[in-house]
């Protein structure tokens, strides 16, 4: 079992997601925000600016004019999109070369994060649910807890895997049983420490158990990330040691009104987008 103090210490040691991400997410929700406001927040971080422009100008967004500045990016893409791109641009540099405990390489975690972001968004369009704010960002950052507890998982991996193989537990349940905490709960703590919007914190915290999310949470968003995460793993996008040992929340299907064929359509339509977007940035610890 890990103590809360040990986890908090580990969360503090993590490289921080650029503070600009939390601030642009706030700006995106304020109708009075201008392109100049965005520029003021993002431009002081040169690496973030460069990564953001690289993604903005990728085929994924299909812009007719090349954006040369943050201000132009906001004009061309809008505030919401730019804020999502900023989250992606900030995540890539903090992914380590190899994530201990999950036996996953940097590229695979990056691909998985991008896949869940794109699939969450596609699903919300396909289901015609009211598209929750921050769907892309919440999908992108759902697994940040793994960055903090990887070392603990590695220390207990034999026991965790034994619970998966012998007792038929899902990987996340085995984490909880052995460590007393799971990567989703820690993900909530990490995104809180990074001062991300509450919706993003809730999605990270409850993405394996959307049915148990508190009433204040945007359950549609949590359900979307839950399904997108399962779909990405099912399709082999960023498979880690937890593999396919995961459960699907019983209530998600009826809450979202989702069908198996819908998942297949979303998967087919999203593959190229996921690859295009993931190719734009290389996680700091990875090369491919």
């Amino acid at each position, binding site marked *: 079992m890990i103590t809360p103090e040990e986890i908090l210490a580990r969360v503090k040691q993590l490289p921080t997601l650029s503070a600009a991400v939390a601030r642009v997410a706030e700006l995106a929700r304020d109708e009075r925000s201008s392109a100049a406001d965005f520029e003021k927040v993002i431009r002081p971080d040169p690496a973030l600016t460069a990564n953001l422009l690289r993604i903005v100008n990728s085929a994924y967004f299909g812009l007719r004019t090349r954006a040369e500045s943050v201000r132009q990016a906001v004009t061309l893409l809008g505030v919401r999109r730019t804020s999502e791109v900023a989250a992606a641009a900030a995540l890539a540099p903090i992914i380590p070369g190899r994530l201990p405990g999950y036996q996953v390489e940097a590229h695979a975690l990056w691909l998985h994060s991008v896949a869940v972001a794109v699939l969450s968004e596609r699903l919300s369009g396909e289901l015609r649910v009211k598209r929750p704010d921050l769907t892309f960002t919440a999908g992108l950052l759902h697994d940040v807890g793994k960055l903090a507890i990887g070392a603990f998982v590695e220390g207990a991996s034999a026991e965790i895997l034994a619970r998966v193989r012998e007792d038929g537990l899902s990987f996340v349940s085995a984490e909880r049983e052995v460590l007393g905490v799971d990567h989703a709960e820690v993900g909530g703590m990490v995104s809180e420490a990074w001062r991300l919007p509450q919706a993003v914190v809730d999605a990270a915290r409850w993405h394996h158990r959307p049915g148990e999310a508190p009433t204040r949470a945007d359950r549609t968003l949590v359900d979307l990330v839950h*399904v997108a995460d399962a779909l990405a793993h099912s399709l082999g996008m960023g498979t880690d040691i937890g*593999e396919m040992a995961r459960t699907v929340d019983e209530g998600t299907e009826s809450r979202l009104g989702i069908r198996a064929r819908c998942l297949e359509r979303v998967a087919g*339509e999203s593959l190229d987008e996921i690859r295009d977007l993931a190719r734009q940035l290389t996680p700091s610890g990875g090369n491919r």
Partner: protein
Amino acid sequence: MSSLTVDISDIKLSAEPDDLIVTYALGSCIAVMVHDPVRVAGGMIHYMLPLSETSPEKAKTKPAMFADTGIPLLFQSMYKLGCRKQDLVVKVAGGGALYDDKGLFSIGKRNYTILRKMFWKSSVIIKAEDVGGARSRTARLYVGTGRCTITSQGEETEL
């Protein structure tokens, strides 16, 4: 020796005896591996979904995404290399599933069902298979010998 990697929704073929054809992270997707010991050639598809009617537009640009458009393409491509149907040895891997009682994530099962139907209709016999379960797999086909291996949960087995 070159190692040819088959991406999701992709086909790779080789008639070079030293080549290895490999695909990683087969979850609910399925890999069909075809080997011709007479012509000494091999081919592999890694398809993602059962039916092209799901996204007809995608099927035009990426036929290997679907079982019903990709598998015929794999076989036709082998014939173009000079292979004959009666010589082909066919093996199958993947089609995994999550712990999902309600069957929302039935992609792996449907991928396999369609494959069986297609093979039954065209009298193709599966020599060996490793399908289903909550497992992710990496499949390898050695072109020279037709040897197939599956790696899953850290263990390699012969198929």
